[in-house]
């Protein structure tokens, strides 16, 4: 093999974990701040608004609650399939990993398709991000979250296809990669768990 980066599999003596895992947690910490800043902006704008949504009515009447609920269930399901993909690696089965990982990617695509229908319905009614603060916040938060879903799909598809060749080289290394991708994926699920009630229901 070419020059090996140390501590891909064995824990780093200082942190007690492999470097990749430490790296993904630091990345997630920065992600918390990214979404936190936007969420904080949402609170500020909303508290300052005489009515929310500004045009009147309720968020649950403006946004499609059944679709949002469905998408929440889809993401939660994709989280457990992701865990099972990693668990399959732990239990030494690449075919099972591929099955669960394919399910995870499939569910992520379902989420995006539903989001596409939600967005196109809003656009159809002339509700673009510039329409008012409600739609501005809605599109920025769900759009950024959607981009994270796309990122997860790219990484997970790589692990499902070309990336899985690593299984034959070093199983533990590959399993760590799946675990790290999983940590990211669960985080994306976790963000949605807060976004859904805050945007759709309250």
């Amino acid at each position, binding site marked *: 093999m070419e020059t090996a980066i140390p501590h891909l599999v064995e824990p780093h003596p200082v942190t007690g974990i492999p470097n990749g895992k430490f790296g993904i947690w630091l990345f997630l910490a920065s992600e918390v701040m990214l979404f936190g800043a936007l969420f904080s902006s949402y609170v*500020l704008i909303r508290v*300052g608004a005489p009515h929310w949504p500004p045009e009147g009515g309720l968020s649950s009447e403006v946004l499609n609650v059944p679709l949002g609920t469905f998408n929440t269930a889809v993401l939660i399901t994709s989280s457990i399939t992701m865990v*099972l993909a990693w668990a399959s690696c732990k239990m030494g089965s690449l075919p099972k990993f591929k099955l669960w990982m394919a399910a995870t990617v499939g569910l992520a695509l379902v989420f995006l398709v539903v989001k596409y229908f939600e967005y196109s319905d809003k656009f159809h009614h002339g509700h673009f991000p510039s329409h008012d*603060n409600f739609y501005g916040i809605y599109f920025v938060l769900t759009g950024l979250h959607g981009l994270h879903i796309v990122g997860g799909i790219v990484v997970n598809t790589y692990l499902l296809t070309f990336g899985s060749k690593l299984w034959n080289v070093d199983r533990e290394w590959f399993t760590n990669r799946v675990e790290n991708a999983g940590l990211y994926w669960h985080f994306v699920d976790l963000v949605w768990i807060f976004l859904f009630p805050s945007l759709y229901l309250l």
Partner: protein
Amino acid sequence: MAEHAQSESPEEFKKHLGRYYVVFVALLCLTAITVGVSYLKLNRPLAIAVALIIATVKAGMVAAVFMHLISEKKVIYAVLVLTALFFALVLLIPSFTAYEGHHIITGT
């Protein structure tokens, strides 16, 4: 958990899989409760409190079990404590400004 799992045999590891299904079902139930409660049309402060408490419980379960934070290395806890501190700070910022800006920032 991940750290212990490395030393476990696949059979031993398999025994722990149950917890993931338990959390999965709990997350779905809590989602149903959140949506159900929203139809009760509670007054706004109560509705916000209920929704955010349930969301926090759900997030806690995802973090503890799916992300196996329940048994992680100290360094990750250290990173997360620092993150939680700054996250709280960022969320507090609106409370310093909202008093002055109540009618300045409008919806349109």
